[in-house]
């Protein structure tokens, strides 16, 4: 078939190879697609067609050399609930990968994740460790049960700190509390941050004061993933989270809508939570 016939932005419909219920609200879904998997780097995302329901962005949480492609879904509404119902053998559509991904250069990386933000970060941590870097990982959640990928990270040759809001595991407190309580140096080349937006702003503030360059992975309403619908753009720059992001240098977006507001499916401004 001729080259031109290839439609990059058309979902590949695949059958689910494996589902794993990671926490009470998060499930990982795995499919086989060497086409997409081989192109994916940590921080990039997929557009996942939940057939009959919707198409939504999901960070790549695993991209194996054998073609394994995984993402991890928190149940929050229609499409994510449907993803929690699907079983092995059922079909989903996937296009991507999209976005820029994390910059993993430097020797010493600090990675801080909250809730579902762990999905791209675990992938990033594995990649960094396999490249021989020193990684310190701070894993936080509301409660012990919700600590995503804890055992996956424990297997890694990295320093792991856990924290929970209710103290059911690790250090007690919200993410910035946890960061404050541990003895964090300033020798990191880069800090990777992903989680709920409030967690990101409060944590970034702290880390920024230490002079460590921060990369934050943003979450905005996405309809196209290819940079034309404009639903994911940031004020006041017009940077598109699906193209120029989802990972931004904190410097770039410090003075943007980040932490202040986002937009809903109509394009109207709405709160960040």
């Amino acid at each position, binding site marked *: 078939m001729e080259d031109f016939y290839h439609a990059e932005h*058309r979902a590949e419909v695949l059958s689910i190879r494996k589902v794993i219920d990671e926490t009470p609200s998060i499930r990982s879904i795995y499919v086989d697609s060497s086409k997409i998997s081989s192109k994916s780097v940590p921080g990039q995302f997929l557009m996942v067609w939940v057939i009959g329901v919707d198409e939504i962005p999901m960070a790549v949480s695993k991209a194996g050399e054998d073609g394994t492609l995984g993402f991890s879904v928190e149940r929050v509404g229609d499409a994510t609930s449907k993803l929690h119902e699907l079983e092995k053998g059922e079909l989903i559509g996937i296009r991507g990968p999209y976005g820029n991904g994390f910059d993993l250069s430097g020797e010493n990386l600090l990675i801080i994740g909250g809730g579902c933000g762990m999905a791209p970060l675990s992938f990033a941590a594995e990649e960094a460790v396999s490249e021989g870097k020193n990684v310190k990982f701070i894993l936080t959640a509301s409660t012990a049960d919700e600590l995503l990928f804890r055992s996956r990270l424990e297997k890694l040759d990295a320093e792991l700190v856990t924290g929970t809001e209710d103290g059911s595991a690790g250090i007690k407190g919200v993410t910035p509390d946890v960061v404050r309580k541990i003895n964090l140096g300033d020798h990191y080349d880069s800090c990777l941050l992903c989680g709920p937006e409030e967690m990101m702003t409060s944590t970034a503030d702290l880390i920024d004061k230490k002079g460590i360059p921060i990369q934050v992975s943003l979450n905005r309403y996405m*309809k196209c993933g290819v*940079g*034309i*619908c*404009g639903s994911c753009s940031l004020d*006041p*720059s017009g940077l598109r989270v699906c193209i120029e992001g989802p990972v931004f240098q904190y410097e770039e977006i410090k003075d943007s809508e980040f932490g202040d507001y986002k937009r809903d499916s*109509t394009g109207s401004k709405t709160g960040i939570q």
Partner: protein
Amino acid sequence: MTKEKLKVTIGTIEIKNPTILAAGILGQTGANLKRVLRSGAGAVVTKSIGPKPREGYSGPNIVQTPCGLLNAMGLPNPGMENMVEEIETVKEKGGTVIGSIFGEGLEEFKKLSRKMEEAGVDAVELNLSCPHAKKLSTIGNDPEMAERITKGVSKESDAPIWTKLPGNTNISNLLEVAQSVQKAGADAITIANTFPGMAIDARAERPVLGHETGGLSGPAIKPIALRLIYEVYKKVDIPIIGSGGVMNGEDMIEYLLAGASAVEIGTGIMWRDIDIFEKVCEEALPYLEDRSVTKLIGSAH
């Protein structure tokens, strides 16, 4: 001077070059519109705005096809109230802004047009490509309805009115609509919009788009849209804005030669990014030789 050669006027509006951001692409926030203007567009058209915030359809909202893109956004938009604010932030910085509107009937169109004028737009584009009374058809395929709405709005408005017609391959029908719209006082006609189309997934055995059918844009439709402009140019005296699959300078020249005074660019951004406007202008220059853009309009006839 190179830059001077690219200037065009559409009725009373002068724009610095004939590339315009098409409606619905990156068009519902002021930040986006300003970014596109900074990237070299001669003007920008906003997302089509209705009276109230509107969610649009469930996804998938887009799917690529050979040399084309299907979309079924469902006209999501923040509503006129919110949009006025966004437009004001653009006009503060300067630049030509066209406000696109869609409505259920004449009264709604009038109200929306008035709001757009208040927000400071340089022209209003009436999107007549949305299905109305008739379930599957569009206002823009109905000469009487198209005339009524164009006339009603243009009588009351100070801003120039551009009427945007759907891609309709029933050419005698389209020509009738174009002539009605001119008679009704339109200052320009934009042709075409996307062409209705769909994609079906062979494994899922269902339409890909959430809304089942959508609109086809991009290079795939260029030959069809170009021919509509060529035919309409023979029948009307008001400026025509071409839209459909402009990807490079050569495409723009083709549209100018067919009779368009300018082009709206949308899907091209997906392949060539936001600076496509600048690129298209650069690439068009060699074809101009020592002529200005205006000299080329309609000269393939």
